[in-house]
């Protein structure tokens, strides 16, 4: 007992004062891509290297779909004109699927829930997580949100064991054909009104597995989605930022 107390003192207070203080992300972190249309020379190299067909160039206008992007940065590497540059901006969440389609330097971040929903969930949001395919990296970076560093509970957000106790569904993975039924059953078991958060590029578009017949190209082909959080996997701060925007804590 005394040893546990001594260890507790040595470990110290470790919760990062987010969102009051911005997180310090590594120098080489790849965040939101920024597009400079004026620099594009139309060589289309970015399109040819993109593993998930996230880039479309049309009449000198580049469009990059963050809902398909796995943030590998290959487009940035091959673009000699620096028309696509990955910034270190970690806030990536959007409320609508089409908002993830980047056309320039402007990005429409996710807004908060509507007033009536905010009244119900704003101070207490219980989420049921379902891993529906994927690689377990999104799950790993979701799990850390409950650790001391992020301390998700202080925002009134908690992951719960039963859909019956939940206000919403937190989905990772492309929704494999083998998980489609289980996902639907979990969604149905959550009492209304409910919200759905799709986390990671797989849950948004199928990601690196998009087009495979063994999966269904993302969660919104099975259930309606209220918040999209891109990334492969999203940084924990990206996930936290998305949830806090939905709850109106950040804007």
């Amino acid at each position, binding site marked *: 007992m005394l*040893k*546990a107390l001594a*260890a507790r003192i*040595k*470990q110290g207070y470790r919760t990062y004062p987010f969102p009051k203080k911005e997180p310090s*992300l*590594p*120098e*080489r*972190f*790849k965040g939101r891509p920024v597009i400079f249309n004026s620099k594009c020379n139309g060589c289309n190299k970015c399109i040819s*290297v*993109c*593993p*998930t067909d996230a880039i479309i160039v049309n009449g000198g206008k580049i469009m990059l779909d963050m809902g398909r992007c*796995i*943030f*590998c*940065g290959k487009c940035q590497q091959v673009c000699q004109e620096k028309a696509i540059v990955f910034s270190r901006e970690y806030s990536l969440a959007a409320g609508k699927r089409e908002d993830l389609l980047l056309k320039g330097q402007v990005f429409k971040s996710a807004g908060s829930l509507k007033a009536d929903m905010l009244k119900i969930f704003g101070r207490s949001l219980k989420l049921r*997580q379902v*891993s*529906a*395919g*994927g*690689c*377990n*990296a*999104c*799950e*790993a*970076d*979701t*799990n*850390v949100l*409950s*650790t*001391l560093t992020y301390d998700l509970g202080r925002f009134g957000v908690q*992951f719960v*064991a*039963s859909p019956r106790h939940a206000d919403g569904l937190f989905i990772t*993975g*492309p929704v*494999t*054909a*083998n*998980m*489609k*039924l*289980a996902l639907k059953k*979990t969604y149905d078991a959550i009492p209304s009104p409910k919200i759905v958060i799709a986390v990671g590029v797989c849950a948004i578009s199928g990601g*690196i*597995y998009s087009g*495979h*017949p*063994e*999966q269904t190209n993302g969660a919104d082909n099975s259930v309606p989605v209220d918040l999209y959080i891109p990334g*492969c*996997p999203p*940084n*924990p701060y990206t996930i936290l930022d998305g949830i806090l925007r939905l709850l109106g804590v950040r804007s």
Partner: protein
Amino acid sequence: MDNMLKIYNCGVNDFKNVPCLDILKFRQLIIEQVNSGLRIATLFAMSADKLVCVLADDTNGSLYILSSRVSKSYPSLTPACPQAHLFEREIAEQFSIIPQGHPWLKPVRFPDSSLIGITDYFKITGSEIHEVAVGPVHAGIIEPGHFRFQCNGENVFHLEISLGYQHRGIEKAIRNGEQKRLIHYMETLAGDTTIGHSLAYSQIIESLSNCYIPARANIIRAIALELERLANHTGDLGALAGDIGYLPTASFCGRIRGDILNMTAVFCGNRFGRGLISPGGTNYDIENSHISELKQRLKTTLKDVSGAVNLLWETPSVLDRFDDTGVLTQKDCIDLGVVGVAARACGLERDARFNFASGAYQFSQIPISTWETGDVFARAYVRWVEIQRSINFIENELDNLPDGQIHSKVSALPANKIAVSLVEGFRGEICHTAITGNNGEFLHYKIVDPSFHNWMALAVAMRNQQISDFPLCNKSFNFSYCGHDL
């Protein structure tokens, strides 16, 4: 050994040099060799009429490849060689080659999704017997899988594990020639083993194309692999503490695990090492400023993790739950061909870093960490010893990082070759096997995640345990669902 082609880890040879035996001889030879101490590293069908097997000899670092022609069915290996059980089920599922006499011939990944989870589960009947079904959706933030227990009161007689929920068709996509996505498939076979699998794949490409890897790149790769092990072992020890309600270690380790992931991000930008490794070397260098930062962080980590983990060994209520829980006997471990921490916790010296050393491990050895008891305690304690040795290894490698390039050019793949690559990921031995066709394309690419060998060990370890100890036992093995389901 005349009927087998001998190679070493990362070895390559003409595919035509792999002996093609009569199926009965193939079967007999595998059984004999396994009985004499070898184990199956991989066994797969590459077409509807051809089987390939790679046997591993842990005592001298040799790998032996043999193959056989087969039509529609053959006498199953499993009754005489239990470690073939899941490989044979996979062969039957993928190529409709029936291993006759297989005692447990059930689906592995349920390629027909309308039948997911539907199989003839083993059932015990009796007035005091009840069945507990768990999953695919579990209570925590965990991957999906179905567990079915046959219980008498709290006592588990039998556990059957049925997976396939994470199946996303990676092997098929690789065979279909998806070039741009290849490295990303490898990075996401099991997301927590990004480094392990992308390294195994890169070694395959490098050995096939006879590419020489700069020493600096080899060392950066080993540092990343050990950081991956550190992060996961630390997280696992925290989760074990959490499963028995010992919250101090659970809280501390959860936080420390994140700090270790952030160390990988220091030089690669991504916490899981995405984009770090590619055939030919690494894509990111460790700069001088990173070395001092990493060393400082490692020092703090060792202090923090020691403080957190040593509490476990000093707390009687923890030891009471860890000791003699979920025992896997050494005999079962050998019979099932178990690898990694689970095997080392049964006293078996199975560690590809040592026995099948490649890359930096050829020059800097990490001793194999074992414990004899095969219980939850052993699996926890082996992790703790490995954490300390990994930190020590990384510190040494950072001190001796040679100058030079981090990437070499990779040439086109040669035709009609076979290559095998083993990497000791944090869960155990990762085995990738590639066979190229007439144009150097992948005729076949076989991935074996350590969990594929190991899942049955959890089922066996649960026999005669309390069902309430299942989460603890499960976590003590911590197998991958996505690595199994592919």
